[in-house]
């Protein structure tokens, strides 16, 4: 008979799929649980850290310091990294289940939501995701190009990702040069002719989802004036009631910031950012590429905190050559896992994956954006992962207790499939190369933007392609 699961003689083998914040916080909670646990973190890219590396804006270097905390977690005994391994492609979920007692999916929400309007796929119309991943040097987006020759750009959506996109478009390359922004993006932005950026939200100023800090930052740009139409700040009674609620002080502060901006004279800066509220895109028009956006005016209906945008039927047209939509993310299904296509998440109950009949699938868990959907910031995922791990640990007595091989069981499969797993030590080598490349440029790092380049740092450069 096997020793009790979770003891030194039969440690709990857990695979964590994904190396973003939720993956690291799940690993930490497991490794600090007091039980004997082995955690293998499996990541599809050779580089860890998920959206902290590939989402958080390069001009927010302080936030990227969350990585320092992940480096500490990665040092905990019994943590291993298997990067450059794609679950569902290089390794099947069933194969993981054969070698681990439990699997925590922390694979994020990497797909985009669609606007669902005609012309959405015209050249010049992009998702914020593509642009963000491209300027952050994500290998999947290395070959994208963005035509920044248009003078008028539109950003649809009013949350922090939309704010990031606006800032990157609005800043001069001199303001970005010393960040870890990808060189290809810096080169393209240097030639940008964008002068006007319209930031469009379907609801009003009281409902915008910016954090105070991100919004304030948009009013403090060195090379870009910010314009808010005072008429947009004439709020309806329901919105005023929302702002009265003490718990809603973030929105109240947002409106205060917007009022200050509306009262300010433009400063003659070369670029201009225009906030537009209560408008939705109806159609993107152009012969082969985006030339014009048709917008409809909305009004709010519903009681305070339940207000939704409804079309008034009144339309407006805006000449523009570039559009980014930032209206949310959805998870990507992995064969062998249940998927809720409507919400774009893995369906769970208390962090445990459930099948179509709502029955728990033993040993499978989820945390972070793939569990909750794309809401919340880096730290939100810590509380979330801790909750999932609590469920997992509570299940240990009922999990099949036979010993599992963990990564030793995966190694032959990966070898057979010619997959070069990137360990923590390997990653440190790649990381050091990136930092060294950045140094002469005055950048914290110059990221490798191709998988082959990253792998080229390893094995004396022997592994280059896959």
């Amino acid at each position, binding site marked *: 008979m096997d020793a009790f699961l979770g003891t030194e003689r039969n440690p709990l083998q857990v695979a964590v799929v994904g190396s973003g*914040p939720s993956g690291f916080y799940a690993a930490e909670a497991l490794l600090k649980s007091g039980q004997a646990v082995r955690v293998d973190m499996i990541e599809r890219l050779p580089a860890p850290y998920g959206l902290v590396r590939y989402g958080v804006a390069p001009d927010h270097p*302080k*936030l990227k*310091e*969350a990585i*320092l*905390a992940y480096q500490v977690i990665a040092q905990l005994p019994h943590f291993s990294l298997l990067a450059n391994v794609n679950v569902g492609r290089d390794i099947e979920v069933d194969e993981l289940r054969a070698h681990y007692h439990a699997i925590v999916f922390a694979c994020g929400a990497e797909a985009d939501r669609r606007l669902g309007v005609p012309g959405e796929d015209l050249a010049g119309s992009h998702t914020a995701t593509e642009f963000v991943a491209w300027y952050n040097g994500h290998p999947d987006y290395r070959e994208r190009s963005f035509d920044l020759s248009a003078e008028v750009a539109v950003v649809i959506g009013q949350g922090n990702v939309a704010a990031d996109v606006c800032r990157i478009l609005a800043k001069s390359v001199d303001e970005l040069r010393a960040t870890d922004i990808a060189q290809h993006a810096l080169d393209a932005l240097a030639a940008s002719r964008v002068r006007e950026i319209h930031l469009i939200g379907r609801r009003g100023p009281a409902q915008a989802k910016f*954090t*105070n*800090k991100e919004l304030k930052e948009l009013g403090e740009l060195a090379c870009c004036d910010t314009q808010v139409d005072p008429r947009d700040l004439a709020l309806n009674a329901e919105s005023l009631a929302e702002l009265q609620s*003490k*718990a809603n*002080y*973030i929105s109240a*502060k947002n409106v205060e910031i917007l009022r200050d901006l509306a009262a300010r004279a433009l400063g003659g800066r070369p670029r201009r950012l225009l906030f537009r509220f209560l408008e939705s895109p109806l159609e993107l028009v152009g012969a082969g590429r985006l030339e014009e956006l048709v917008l409809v005016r909305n009004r709010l209906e519903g009681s305070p905190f339940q207000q939704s945008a409804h079309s008034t039927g009144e339309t407006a047209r805006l000449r523009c050559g570039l559009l980014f939509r930032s209206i949310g993310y959805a998870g990507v299904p992995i064969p062998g896992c249940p998927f809720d296509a409507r919400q774009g998440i893995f369906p769970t109950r208390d962090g445990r994956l459930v099948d179509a009949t709502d029955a728990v699938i033993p040993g499978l868990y989820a945390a972070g954006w793939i569990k909750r959907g794309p809401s919340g*910031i*880096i*730290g*939100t*995922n*810590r*509380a979330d992962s*801790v909750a999932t791990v609590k469920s997992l640990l509570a299940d240990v007595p009922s999990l099949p207790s036979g010993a599992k091989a963990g990564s030793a069981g995966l190694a032959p499969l990966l070898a057979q499939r010619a997959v070069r797993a990137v360990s923590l030590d390997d990653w440190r080598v790649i990381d050091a190369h990136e930092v060294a490349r950045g140094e002469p440029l005055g950048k914290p790092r110059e990221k490798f933007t191709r998988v082959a380049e990253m792998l080229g740092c390893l094995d004396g450069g022997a592994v280059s392609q896959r």
Partner: protein
Amino acid sequence: MTTIVTDNCNGCRFTDCVTVCPVACFHADETMLYIDNNVCIQCSACIPLCPVHAIYADDDIPEDQAHWIEINAERSQALPVVTEKQDALPGAEARKAALGY
């Protein structure tokens, strides 16, 4: 950039804030918490989580709370890190109500 815990935390210590801190920079004594700004990444995750709005950042720090900047800096160095939710102090609910939240 600075994020600090102020007066309102004193005597309540709900610690909802620590559960979302991505970098474990909250330190605690018997009555309240303090942020170590050498470690804090200024992500503001903790601010909306605090039920009594005790946490402020940068130019939102009320003038009459500015002395807390130094207190946070000093106390956080001397005290242990807290990363998990603690039991609220006895009387926390009453204090929360008294503060109008």
